[in-house]
C-alpha cells in the first residue's frame, strides 16, 4: 500500500506532524521535539524509498483522487526529482537534529513548538513543490513555503529579524504575483495546468499567440528569479538570512532558495522546448546575471564583517553558479547545476550551523572576533574549514565536483569565458573563506572563551555533514550516475543544443 501511495504520503507526513505538534506540543515540549525529529526522519526514509523506487522502476506518477491529469492533480517523480527530494529531506533532517539541541538556548522558549511546526510545514511544502507536476499546485506550495520561511526568519521576534522578514515577504509576494500571472497566461494559451500537457500544446499555442507565450515565459522567469535571489533581485536575501536564527539561516540558504531553482528547471527543461528558449535572449541574460551575481556576491561577501551576512552574500554568489549551470544549456553544465544544488545545500548548511555554534559560544558575530576559536571548539571550526575548502573548490571536497561539471559544461557550450569566471570566483571565495579558517586555528584569540560542551545532536549533525562533503567529493559518481541518464534524456529529447 505504501509503495503505491508513497508520494502523497511523503508530502502529507510533515504536514500531519506539524499539526500534531500544534495540538499537543504546547504542553509537552519534549513530545514536540521528538515528533518533529521522528517526522523528519521518517520523511527522509520515505524519500530514500522513493529514490530507490525511481531507480528500480523508472519515472512514476500519481493522480490525486484518481482523476487523470488534465483534470486532476498529478505528482511525478523522476531521477532529478528524486535526487532533489533526497537533498531536501536529508539536509532538513540534519538541520532539525542540530536545531533540536541548540534552539532552546537561541530563541524564545515559548515559540519553540511553533518553530518545529513551521519547520515541518516548510519541509512538506518543499517536497510538494518538487513532486508536483501541476503549475497551480506548485504555486500554492510556493506560497506556503514563502510564508513559512518568512515566519522562520521572524520567529524570534527581534527587530532586525522582523524587518528582514517583512522585506522578504514583500519581495517574495512580488515574485509570486508575477509567477501567478505567468501561470494564468500559460493556462490561457494552452488550456492546461499540467506540465506535460502544457509542453505538448505549447508549440501550437506559440503559433497562435507568440507574444503571450514570450511574456509568460518572461514573467515566470523573473518571478522565480526574485524568489531564488538571482543577482539584481537578491536584496532581500542577505538581511533575511543574516538575521534569522541559526537553523533557519541554514535551511533558508541551503534549501528554500534552491526549491525555486527546481521550479525553474521544470519550467525550462520540461515545459518550454530547448530550441525555443535558445532562440530567445533568455540564455544570455541568465548568464550575464549569474556572472554578475557571482562577482558582486563574492565582493560584497569579502567586505562583510558579520560572519552570517558574509555567508548570506556567499549564497548569492553560489546561486549564481547554479543559474550559470542552467543558463549554459549543456548537458554537463546541467549536471553541475543539479549537483551544486545538493552540494551547496550540504556545504552552506554546515557553514551556517558551525558559524552559529561559534557565535553562540563566543557571543560575537564579527569575523575578527572568531580568531583562535579553533582551539577551544575544534569541531565547529573543522566543519567550517571543510565547508570553506569545499566552497573554494579544492578537489576531494564535494564543491569541486559541481564546479568541475560546470566548467566542463562551459567548455561544452563553447563559452570559454565562463570557465574563467568560475576559476576567478573560486579565488574570490578563497579570499573570504580562508582568512576565517586561518584566524580560527592559528591566530591568538581576542576574546576569552570558556569551554562549554557542545550538545550531542549538534555534534552528530556536523560530523554527518562533514562526512557527506567528503563522501560526495570522493564518490561523486553515485549522484552523477543517478541523475545523468535523465539529463541526457532531456537533452536527447530536444535533439540537443
Amino acid at each position, binding site marked *: 500500500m505504501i509503495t503505491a501511495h508513497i508520494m502523497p504520503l511523503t508530502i502529507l507526513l510533515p504536514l500531519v506532524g506539524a499539526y500534531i505538534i500544534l495540538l499537543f506540543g504546547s504542553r509537552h515540549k519534549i513530545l514536540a521535539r521528538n515528533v518533529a525529529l521522528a517526522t523528519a526522519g521518517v520523511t527522509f526514509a520515505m524519500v530514500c524509498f522513493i529514490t530507490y523506487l525511481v531507480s528500480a522502476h523508472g519515472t512514476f506518477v500519481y493522480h490525486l483522487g484518481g482523476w487523470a491529469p488534465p483534470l486532476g492533480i498529478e505528482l511525478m517523480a523522476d531521477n532529478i526529482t528524486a535526487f532533489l527530494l533526497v537533498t531536501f529531506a536529508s539536509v532538513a533532517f540534519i538541520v532539525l537534529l542540530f536545531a533540536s539541541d541548540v534552539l532552546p538556548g537561541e530563541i524564545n522558549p515559548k515559540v519553540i513548538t511553533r518553530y518545529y511546526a513551521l519547520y515541518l510545514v516548510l519541509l512538506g511544502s518543499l517536497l510538494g513543490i518538487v513532486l508536483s507536476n501541476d503549475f497551480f499546485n506548485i504555486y500554492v506550495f510556493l506560497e506556503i513555503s514563502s510564508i513559512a520561511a518568512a515566519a522562520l526568519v521572524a520567529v524570534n521576534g527581534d527587530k532586525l529579524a522582523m*524587518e*528582514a522578514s517583512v*522585506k522578504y515577504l*514583500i*519581495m517574495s509576494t*512580488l515574485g509570486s504575483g508575477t509567477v501567478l500571472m505567468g501561470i494564468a497566461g500559460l493556462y490561457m494559451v494552452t488550456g492546461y495546468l499540467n506540465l506535460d500537457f502544457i509542453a505538448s500544446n505549447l508549440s501550437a499555442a506559440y503559433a497562435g*499567440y507568440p*507574444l*503571450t507565450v*514570450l*511574456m509568460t515565459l*518572461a*514573467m515566470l522567469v*523573473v518571478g522565480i528569479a526574485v524568489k531564488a535571489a538571482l543577482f*539584481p*533581485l537578491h*536584496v*532581500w536575501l542577505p*538581511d533575511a538570512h543574516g538575521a534569522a536564527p541559526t537553523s533557519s539561516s541554514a535551511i533558508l540558504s541551503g534549501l528554500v532558495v534552491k526549491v525555486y531553482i527546481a521550479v525553474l528547471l521544470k519550467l525550462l527543461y520540461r515545459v518550454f522546448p530547448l530550441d525555443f528558449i535558445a532562440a530567445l535572449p533568455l540564455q544570455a541574460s541568465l548568464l550575464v546575471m549569474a556572472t554578475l551575481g557571482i562577482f558582486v556576491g563574492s*565582493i*560584497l561577501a569579502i*567586505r562583510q564583517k558579520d560572519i552570517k551576512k558574509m555567508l548570506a552574500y556567499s549564497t548569492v554568489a553560489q546561486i549564481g553558479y547554479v543559474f550559470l549551470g542552467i543558463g549554459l544549456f549543456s548537458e554537463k553544465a546541467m549536471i553541475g547545476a543539479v549537483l551544486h544544488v545538493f552540494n551547496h545545500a550540504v556545504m552552506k548548511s554546515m557553514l551556517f550551523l558551525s558559524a552559529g555554534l561559534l557565535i553562540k559560544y563566543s557571543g560575537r558575530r564579527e569575523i575578527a572576533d572568531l580568531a583562535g576559536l579553533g582551539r577551544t571548539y575544534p569541531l565547529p571550526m573543522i566543519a567550517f574549514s571543510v565547508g570553506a*575548502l569545499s566552497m*573554494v*573548490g*579544492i*578537489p*576531494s571536497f564535494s564543491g*569541486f*565536483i559541481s564546479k*568541475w561539471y560546470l*566548467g*566542463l559544461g562551459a*567548455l*561544452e557550450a563553447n563559452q*570559454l569565458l565562463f*570557465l*574563467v569566471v568560475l*576559476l*576567478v570566483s*573560486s*579565488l574570490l571565495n*578563497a*579570499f573570504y573563506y*580562508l*582568512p576565517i579558517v*586561518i584566524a580560527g586555528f*592559528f*591566530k*591568538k584569540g581576542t576574546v576569552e572563551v570558556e569551554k562549554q560542551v557542545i550538545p550531542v545532536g549538534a555534534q552528530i549533525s556536523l560530523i554527518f555533514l562533514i562526512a557527506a562533503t567528503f563522501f560526495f*567529493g*570522493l*564518490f*561523486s*559518481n553515485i549522484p*552523477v550516475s543517478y541523475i545523468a541518464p535523465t539529463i541526457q534524456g532531456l537533452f536527447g529529447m530536444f535533439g540537443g543544443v
Partner: protein
Amino acid sequence: MPDAISRIPLVLVLLPLVGAFGVVGAARFGDRWRSRMANAITFATLIVALWQFYLVQQGTVLVYVLEGFVEFGLRWRVDFVGAIFSVVVAAVWFLATVFAREYMAHEHSQTRFFGFWTFTLGATLGVFVAGDLFSLFLFFEAMTFAAYVLVIHEEDRESLRAGNIYLYMSVAGGLALLAVIFLLQFVVGATGFQPALHLIIEQGINPWLVVIVLIGGFGVKAGMIPLHIWLPKAHPVAPAPASAVLSAIMIKTGAYGFLRMLFVVLSVPDGDPLFAFQQNFGYMFIWIGAITMFVGAIMGILNDSMKKVLAYSSISQMGYILFALGSGVMLGSRGAFGFAGAWMHMINHAFFKSFLFLLAGAVFLHTGELDLDKLGGLRKQMPFAMGFFLIAAASITGIPGFNGYVSKILIHEAILEAYHLLEWPSLLWLERIFVVTGGLTAAYISKIWIKAFFGKARNDWSHVKDLSTSHIRVFGTYTAIVVTIGVFAQRMVDRLVIPAASLMPFEQGDLAHVGHVPFWGSHELMSPIISYAIAVAVLLLLWKFGKHIVVPRWLSVEYLVYKQLYNGSLGIIRFLIHLRENWIPKNMLTGRRIWRRVDDAAQETKAQIRRWKPPKWEPPRWEPARWGSAIKPITKDDLLRKIEATRAREKERVQLWRTKEGEITKWIQRARRDWQEKEARFEDRIYDVVDGIPRKPQRPEEELSLDERLRRTLEGITRRKFNPYWTTKNLGFDTWIVAMVIALILFVFLLAR
C-alpha cells in the same frame, strides 16, 4: 601476483597519508612514541619506494586505477621517472624526519607539525606517482594545504603573512592548473600524459594560452620569476626541516609538472608544422630559466640571512632546471641533453639543498641566530658543521666529485648543443649567463661559509655545542649520497638518466650521446675553476668596496609587478568614476541613491588622488661593511665624507621636491574649489530633497596606506547603510516598470491582432 604489485603506488601514497593519523594517535602515548612513529612511517615509505624502484627497474610499469573515485578515477602510473623521484622524496623526507626530532624538541604543537609533516609526504609522493594530470592536481592541492601548516608553524606575524602570500598564490596557481585540466579533459577526453597539441589546435584554442596558463599553474610552485615572491618569504619562516623539504622537494613538483607537460603533452615530432611553436616556447623557457637563475643568484648574494640566501638559491637552482628544460624542449627529439640536465639537477638539488637547509637549521638550533652579520667565528665550536657545510657547498657549486658537478655539466652541454644545432647567437649569450650564474652561486655559498664559520665572533659562542650524534649521522648519510653520485657520475647517468630519458620522445642516437659525456675531460674540469674565479672576483669586489648593498624597495618584483597591477586595477575604478563624473549627465539616469554612493566614492577617491605622492626614490644604500677580520675596517674619515655627500644629495632632492610641491598645492586648491562649487550647485540640494537623509560629515584627511585607500574606495562604491528597500524603491522600481511597460505594449499588440 601482478595485481598486488600494481597496488604498490597506492600503498606508497596511503602509507604516509593514513600514517599521519597514526602519528597523531601515537602522540597520546608520549613524545618519544610520536617521533618513533614518524620515523617508522617515513622509513617504511622509503622501503616501499625502493621496492617500487626495484620493480620498475626490472621493466614493469606499475599502473593502478581507482575507478570512480573523485569523478573519473584516480590513476597511478609509475614509470622510471616517477619511481626515481619517489625514492628521492622518501629519502630526503626520512633524513629530515630524523633531523627534526631533535630540532623540534623545544617547539610548540609538535603533534600538529608531525601529523601534517607525514601527511605532506603522502601528498607529495602522490604528485610524483600520479598517472594523469587530474590525479597530480589532486595531490598537488593536498600538498599545498598541508604544507601551509608547516609554513606557519611559528604562528607569529611574519610567518602568518608569509603563509598568506604562499596560500593565495598557490590557490591561484592551482586554479590555473585546473584550467589546463579542464582544457585537456574537454579536448582529449582524459588528462593522461599523452600528446595533445594537435587536438588543442583543432578545437580552435590558442596553444600559447595553454602554455601561459600552464606557467601560471606550475610556475608558482616552481618559484619562477616573477611568480616567486612567496618563496623567499615562506621558506625562511618555516622550521628548518620544513624549509628543507619545501625547498628540496615541493618546488620540484612544479618542475616535474613542466617536465611531463612540456616533453610529452605539448610536444610534437620533428618536422611537424607545429614544431616551430614548440621551439618558440622552449626558447621562452630558456629565457625564463636564465632570468630566474640570474636574479635568484644576485638576490642570494645581497641577502644576509642564512635561510633567505638559501631560499633565493633555490629560486636560482630552479632557474637551472627550467633552463635545461627549455633547451631540451627547443630541440625536440634531439633534446635529450636538456632533459638529462634538468632531470639530474632535480635529483641533485633535492639532496644538496635539503642538506644545506638542515645545516642552517643545525646552526640555528645551537646558536639561535640566522643572520650572517651576527654569526661568525663558529669554526672552533662547530667543526663538524663547518666540514659538512663545505661538502654541501662543494656540491652546489659543482666541484668535481660531488653531485652538483654532474648536472651542471649536463646542463652546460645542453645549451651548447642547442647552440651548435641552431646557431642562434642569443643562445651563446644564454650560455654565458649560465656560466656567470655558476660563479655567483659559488660567491653566495662561500659568503655564507666564510661569514658564519670564520672571522671574528660577534657573539659569545662559548656555550655552543657541535652537532649531536644523530645529526652527524644524518649529515654523514647526505655526504655519502652526494659523493656517490658525484664520483660515479658516468654510472649514474647510465642508470638514472638514460632510462628516464628513453621514456620521452628522443632519438636513440642522441640518447647514446648523453651516455658519453666526458665528465673527467679537461674542458669540463675547467668549469668549476671558472666558477670560482668569478666567485673570487665578485667577493673581492664586495670586499674591496667594503660594502653590502641593500636593494631599494622600488626595484623589487613586488613593487615593479604586483603593486603596479594593484594600482592599475585601482586606476580602472578611478577611470570609471571619472567617466561617471564628466561624461554622464546627472539626471539622465534614475536610481539616484546608487549614484550618490558613487559620488561619495568619487569624492573620496579625488581626495586620495590629491594625497597621492610618488613613491620615494631611494638611492641604493651603501653601508659600512661588517665583514670579518679578513677585511680592513673602513676609516672614520671615509665614513664622514660619505655621510656628508649623502646629506648634500638628500638636501638637493628635498629642495627639488619643495619647488614642485608649490605647483601641486596650487593644483589641488583649484581642483578642490571646482569640486566644491559643483557640489554646492547640485548635489546637496538634490540629495536632501530626494533622500531626506543628512549627508555624513566629512572626515578629516589623513595619511592612508594604499590598501586602506583601495578598501575605502570599494567600500564607498558598495556601501549601503542599511536601507532594505532601495532596490524595490528605486533601481528595481525602474527596472520593473520598464519591463512591465514593455510587457504592456506587447500585450496591447497582442490584442490588436
